[in-house]
């Protein structure tokens, strides 16, 4: 047998692993279980029921917040993916040069700047803009979400591009394809899995956002997460659990779909 450092054999490994998994999954499991509680309590099990799901489905505020979340995520993920794809093309289709690392850092800014800082900054800027323009619609949220989704859309597209042989584009040009045809027929189809992955990642990240949304939204612009946050400050009923459970199911669905699409096309 080869002798190598096997972390699994170290004392404490099993304990740490178990504690970690318990911390990760137990609270979620409890949340999901109590979504099906008959009673109003989050602590006492009073039998199985779907009443809180029904309540959530009949709650107009929930439906509106959910719809708003989906609209914002759809627009933001689309814009972010377009911007990220262009950025990825620009930063990989070039020789390494001084300042390129700086550009990567610029593009990935939202990953490094604390979200609360961006949130406060946007709040200040947008409140001015609202005064000037008089516009106070969903545009601000879409814009803010687009910005912080860009790095998430950028990373998979760039990874895909970096694995793509540049000679393929040369070969297309050599075979009489104009730059646009080369992009349409060669680059884009080969990039597609990266673009789909980037879009889905951006979509989920946008759906999930609380901090920036909370600061940027105007009155009556709750998304599902900020709506839930608002509810928690008042009476807590398993309705929140039911909403969270649906939300979880949606996220898992998207991420799973993304995983399969990616594997198929790889």
């Amino acid at each position, binding site marked *: 047998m080869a002798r190598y450092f096997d972390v699994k054999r170290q004392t404490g490994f099993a304990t740490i692993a178990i504690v970690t998994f318990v911390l990760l999954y137990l609270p979620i499991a409890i949340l999901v279980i109590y979504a099906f509680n008959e009673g109003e309590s989050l602590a006492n099990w009073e039998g199985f029921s779907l009443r809180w799901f029904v309540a959530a489905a009949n709650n107009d505020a929930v439906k509106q917040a959910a719809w708003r979340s989906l609209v914002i995520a759809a627009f933001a993920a689309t814009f972010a993916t377009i911007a990220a794809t262009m950025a990825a093309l620009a930063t990989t289709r070039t020789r390494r040069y001084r300042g390129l690392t700086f550009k990567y850092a610029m593009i990935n800014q939202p990953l490094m700047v604390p979200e609360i800082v961006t949130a406060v900054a946007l709040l200040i800027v947008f409140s001015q803009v609202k005064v000037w323009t008089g516009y106070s619609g969903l545009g601000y949220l879409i814009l803010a979400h687009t910005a912080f989704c860009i790095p998430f859309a950028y990373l998979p597209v760039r990874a895909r591009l970096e694995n793509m042989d540049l000679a393929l584009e040369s*070969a297309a040009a050599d075979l009489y394809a104009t730059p646009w*045809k080369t992009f349409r027929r060669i680059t884009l189809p080969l990039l597609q899995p990266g673009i789909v992955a980037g879009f889905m990642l951006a979509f989920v990240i946008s759906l999930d956002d609380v901090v920036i949304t909370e600061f940027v939204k105007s009155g009556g612009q709750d998304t599902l997460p900020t709506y839930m946050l608002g509810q928690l400050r008042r009476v807590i009923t398993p309705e929140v659990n039911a909403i969270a459970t649906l939300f979880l199911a949606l996220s898992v669905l998207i991420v799973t779909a993304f995983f399969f699409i990616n594997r198929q096309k790889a």
Partner: protein
Amino acid sequence: MPEPLRVNERRVAVEARNISKVFGTGEHALRALDDVSVGIAENEFFTLLGPSGCGKTTLLRLIAGFEFPTSGAILLGGEDIATLPPYKRPVNTVFQSYALFPHLTVAQNVSFGLEMLGKPRGEIEARVAEMLKLMRMEQLANRRTDQISGGQAQRVALARALAPAPKVLLLDEPLSALDYKLRKEMQLELKRMQAETGITFIFVTHDQEEALTMSDRVAVMSAGKILQVGSPRDIYDRPAERFVADFIGETNYLAGTVQGVDGGRAEVLLKTGGRISASYSEGMTPSGEVTLVVRPEHARAVEGAADLSGAVEDIVYFGTDTHIHTRLDDGSAFTVRQQNSRNAVLPFARGDRIGIVVGDDAAQVLRD
């Protein structure tokens, strides 16, 4: 100085005129090609041969249009194409990495160029079928390109580049990724393809044997310059420069002084004693101290005195031939290669003094 429009009585397909290519600027500037001029005839199998980094790929990329020359002109059928983008040049490339489109089938790869040219559907299908037949790949038409072997990928790359019937086909070390046996097969295949299609092939290799066996003419390159252009025989028998002689085959060098020049031949008094007559390349007038080259198989070892004399240092048997390593009287080494036969036994052994006959027209004066 305009180049002649014909090479060996054939029309010129591609011509590079005083091409220089500099990468980078300032202290990082790198002169990848330095005032290169060469004409390549229609229907010619032309090879660029040289060590790694000498600029072979750069010259191909300039012809294909992936790079633009720093100075000079590239003429295709007499027209300057130096500023045309690659997709407007009737030139196709077989890439070293093949660069087959992974999301397309074999047949779709082959049809790509024809589609981009906007050929009618029926014509494309007929042409693709014809190319696949030429490559003996009919069964693989609908395979994905990651489901075929290296040799097959090579053939698809060739079919894809030949399908639009380019004026010139560029091949950048297309065989270097193949194993020895497949390589030999593909060498023959490429020759056959070139003969059948009549397309000008510009072939890049750093394998001298490949260059000699496949080419109509070879250009030997070093450090961004073309040192010599000629038929494989020319290049081998009459290397113009030490680099060419060294790069191709084994070589003996003889130092001497020119005594006189007459009718394309120089009389040279050798440093080791003896006189021989040597040829020299056009355009030079040998004088003073010169170096001659003699290929080992163009000399013969004999008993007694001859053009040269020396002591046998080693005799190495190779099956088809024997290498006799000698030390000449001036201290330089000289190797003779002699064909073996069943009953001939060498009449001398290590340590014996022997004579060496340099064949008629075996010695060549090097430039510089």
